[in-house]
């Protein structure tokens, strides 16, 4: 038990913002927005400092912290509490990248939230609470704590969608809550079974306890039970990811939620599904996962193609992007299903990369919507005339999304396919159809918005405002950085990959 509180500070620093906001008058729009933005900065700085000190050679294990939290099940034979749940935070390379991503995207989404039109106080309080939940999910070292943070993201999201969203916001919010509530319930069952059988929820401990055959468990776990738990986990996180056919909630959220929230939702929250799958699915049940890897890859290809084909015929640009998210999450599954270093690294790259790209895309959608009050492809056209810079960035984001080399999307897509081709070339060959379709639907949508003749004049339309430059430039630079010099990402991930059987 060491004395560092670095991670706790990182995770809970938005709390300061919430407390300060509570004392602000409701009407002070400018000061609330400013405070909301400032409150995200400590986490961002701490996360970047953590990354910097990692580059400086600091061991990530040094960040771990632990404190007693819940103990029960007193019995004299086991010498104290049989069931203990500790408050423990820690990070590995993958979690570090996710924390950095979350912190940066939260700050940028706070900037994007300047477009919010009403009740800023409540909005930013919920927003910061959401940030705490997301940061906590990636740093939690045991399942109970993970679950608590996981739930903590649901409730603010529910209100953020339901109150600040567009036309069918209530429906979207309910469908979000019901689907994710179901996922949580399944997750809780898995956690409880594991807890009851092993007496611990610490992830590291579980990795050994579940897989060492002769380990002394409170109750033995049979093979089928492990499979059952793994499949339940895949379902729980599959709703979040989302995996076909559990995706329909996410379409509504993408369309109805305010763009700044979709930035976080598509950038981070969906990634919790991938993160959970990698951390728990693969981490705790590697042998079982290996057995069903083929089906995961099949699901991935289905996701990829299904999303791509449906994105092709959507009329609303947000819907195109929503289906594109489904399609891109297919790549994560493809990488995991390949079950080799290239594939899994590709999946992790995709998680980070898609987080950045979709955040950028939705930020730009928000900008366009704010000015034109529509995101219908057929109603927009020739935007490159009125907003050349925003259109340029939109095109760049689309290029990144369709996997243009030199941008992060390519590296992840390439590695995932590299991995899959090694094991199931035919499946991978079918999957490459998705690469073509991605180009088709993205160009169709983006060019319809930016190119062509101006269908409808939007008088007084203006290009990027000063504060809108920051997110766009930061995100684009990060995307290009990863694309050109992927080592920034592959280096921290290496430690995670080492545990993989190959």
């Amino acid at each position, binding site marked *: 038990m060491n004395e560092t509180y670095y991670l706790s500070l990182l995770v809970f620093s938005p709390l300061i913002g919430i407390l300060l906001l509570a004392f602000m008058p409701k009407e002070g729009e400018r000061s609330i927005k400013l405070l909301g933005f400032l409150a995200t900065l400590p986490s961002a700085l701490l996360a970047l400092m953590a990354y910097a000190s990692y580059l400086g050679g600091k061991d990530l294990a040094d960040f771990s912290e632990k404190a007693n939290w819940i103990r029960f099940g007193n019995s004299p034979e086991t010498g104290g509490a049989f069931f203990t749940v500790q408050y423990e935070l820690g990070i590995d390379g993958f979690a570090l990248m996710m924390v950095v991503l979350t912190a940066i995207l939260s700050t940028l989404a706070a900037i994007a939230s300047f477009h919010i039109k009403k009740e800023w106080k409540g909005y930013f309080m919920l927003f910061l609470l959401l940030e705490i939940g997301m940061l906590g999910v990636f740093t939690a070292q045991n399942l109970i704590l993970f679950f608590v943070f996981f739930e903590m993201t649901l409730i603010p999201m529910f209100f953020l969608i339901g109150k600040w969203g567009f036309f069918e916001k209530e429906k979207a919010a309910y469908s979000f809550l019901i689907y994710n509530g179901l996922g949580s319930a399944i997750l809780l069952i898995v956690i409880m079974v594991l807890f009851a059988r092993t007496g611990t929820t610490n992830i590291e401990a579980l990795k050994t306890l579940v897989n060492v055959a002769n380990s002394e468990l409170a109750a033995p776990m049979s093979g089928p039970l492990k499979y059952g738990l793994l499949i339940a986990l895949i379902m729980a996180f599959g709703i979040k990811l989302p995996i076909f056919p559990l995706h329909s909630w996410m379409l509504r959220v993408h369309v109805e939620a305010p763009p700044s929230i979709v930035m976080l939702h598509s950038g981070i929250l969906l990634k919790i599904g991938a993160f959970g799958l990698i951390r728990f699915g693969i981490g705790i049940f590697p042998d079982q996962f290996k057995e069903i890897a083929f089906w995961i890859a099949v699901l991935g290809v289905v996701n990829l193609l299904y999303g791509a084909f449906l994105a092709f015929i959507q009329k609303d640009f947000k819907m195109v992007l929503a289906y594109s998210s489904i399609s891109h999450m297919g790549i994560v599954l493809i990488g995991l299903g390949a079950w080799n270093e290239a594939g899994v690294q590709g999946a992790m790259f995709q998680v980070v990369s898609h987080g950045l790209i979709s955040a950028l895309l939705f930020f730009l959608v928000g900008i366009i919507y704010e000015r034109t009050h529509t995101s219908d492809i057929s109603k927009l056209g020739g935007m490159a005339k009125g907003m050349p810079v925003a259109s340029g960035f939109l095109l760049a984001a689309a290029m990144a999304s369709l996997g243009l080399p030199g941008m992060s999307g390519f590296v992840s897509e390439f590695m995932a396919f590299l991995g899959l081709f090694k094991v199931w070339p035919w499946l991978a060959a079918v999957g490459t159809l998705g690469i073509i*379709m991605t180009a088709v639907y993205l160009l169709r949508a983006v060019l319809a918005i930016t190119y062509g003749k101006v269908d409808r004049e939007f008088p007084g339309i203006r290009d990027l405002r000063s504060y809108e430059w920051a997110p766009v430039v930061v995100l684009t630079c990060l995307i290009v950085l990863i694309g050109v010099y992927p080592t920034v990402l592959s280096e921290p991930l290496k430690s995670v990959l080492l545990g993989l059987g190959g």
Partner: protein
Amino acid sequence: MEIAWLIPLFPLLSFLVLLLAGRRLKEASAAAGILLTLASLALSVYVLIERLSGPTFKAEAVWLTIGDLQLTAGFEVNQLNALMLVIVSLVSFLVHIYSKGYMHGDERFPVYYAYLGLFTFSMLGLVLSPNLLQTYIFWELVGLGSFLLIGFYFYKESAKHAAMKAFIMTRIGDVGLLIGMILLFWETGSFEYDEIFAAVRGGELSGTMITLTAILIFVGAVGKSGQFPLHTWLPDAMEGPTPVSALIHAATMVAAGVYLVAATFPLFAASEAAMMTVAIIGAFTAIFAASIGLVQTDIKRVLAYSTVSQLGYMMLALGSAGYVAGVFHLMTHAFFKALLFLAAGSVIHAVHTQDIEKMGGLWKKLRFTGPLFLIGTLAISGVPLFSGFFSKDEILIAAWEHGNTTLFWLAVIAAFFTAFYMFRLFFMVFMGEARSHHKAVHESPGSMVWPMAVLGILAIFAGYVNTPWFGTFLGDWLVEGNSALGHGHVEGPAWIMIVATSVSLAGILLAYLIYGKRAISRDGLITSVPLTYNVLKNKYYIDELYHYTFVYGAKAVSLFLRFIELFLVEGIMKTVAALVQTLGKTGSKIQSGQVQTYGAIAFAGLAVLMLIFALTGGYL
């Protein structure tokens, strides 16, 4: 040669500078672009001269680590790369200068130069790549440059469609390249050209695998080089500004497919089936595109189809083991086709139309452009002593010597077509009298004429580096130290040269009779074979075919999936929701307020639980 890596960085710098500061520089951005490409050109020439005597140079560093695998990036200067460097940077430099005059007054002048910089960077990066992965990366980036420049006039619907089509059609090819490359990687453990060739030589790959990967790589080349069946994007790409067509869609990027096949030539050479595929596709494309070129009336489209046809020629050469012939023609074609496009641009600049039916009699008004265009036309037609003559001759010899008699005769017919439609173009544009009134037709400014003049000289003399008469310097140098590439010079029967010459002269004569002297009626020809004419005019209806099969096919699949989405996915969801609701309603009916009922149910539940517990013994 250690500094060769700097060559692509100058245009990249140009791209970045113009992107950031272009709005302030306005038309001064041209100067920045021209100076930086000049630096590239100077370095390229220096590297080429050094390479003429020195050995191949290669340097690499780790780019990406995947577990134990290390993927590298770097650069390599071998004969082919050094030659390509000079071709690319020279044409790019000339186009940069030319564009100063051509694009003068355009609102997005700096953006145009920025895009040119991006493209030149990618193209130079492509030819320096020492491995397939890096090639693929730059391969896609040149596609991006091409896409951006085709869509430069973004407000035109046609430009939008052309840009999208170009990107998507080439991407179809790219996927082939990607698959081929990954398969090769898992077979040989490397993306490096050297190691792949070593594995091929060492017999590590099965014959089928070699053929498969070679053909997949060729699919990439087909997409990029506009070969049949992925050729339809290239004529549409003429929506871009004309200098761009000269640079990208004539001299450099479309030749990248040929370059790729040449760069991976040892792989192709190891598989007879792959070679045959390349040769057949090449020969077929050559004659197929040439036949469409016969009837087109848009000056740029005629040139575009001629480009497709000439690229087919190069593929035929490579597929017939004529490595030198293919690369040689790639070089000469780069010069004379760039010249033709720039001259066409000059014509368009003067008369503001692209329809040759509306031109005519421009010879006297455009005193520089006319002769320069004629030089290009003579070169591409294969008239003796011009550069195209020597390279085309090499290709025909290669095809004959390789035993592809049918393909050889196809190529000869294509040569006839080429001479015919090029001179048809020439006569219709420059000779006769003006068919439509153009006010104030004047010669283009010096910035446009000088680049054409340089290319004109090259179009005449570039062929002399490799001739049967004055020595085959280029060929010998290209294959030096690499036996897999074949011989530097292939001796062929002398009659081939005579056949080629007479065929091209016959084409010119026929064009003269129809369009120059009007001895044969044009309309009579058209009406005598209306069906053929319509088929050719409509490009064999290939665009329509693709539209009805692939575009509608994709839409049909999408609609089918939408059906699934609506009825299956949403349907299941709705069913579950309805089920839960019914369950809830039933539940609320049980809630009658009767404590006894509650008790009975609770007891029954307890009993069931105990029963389960008793039966399973406590283990689920």
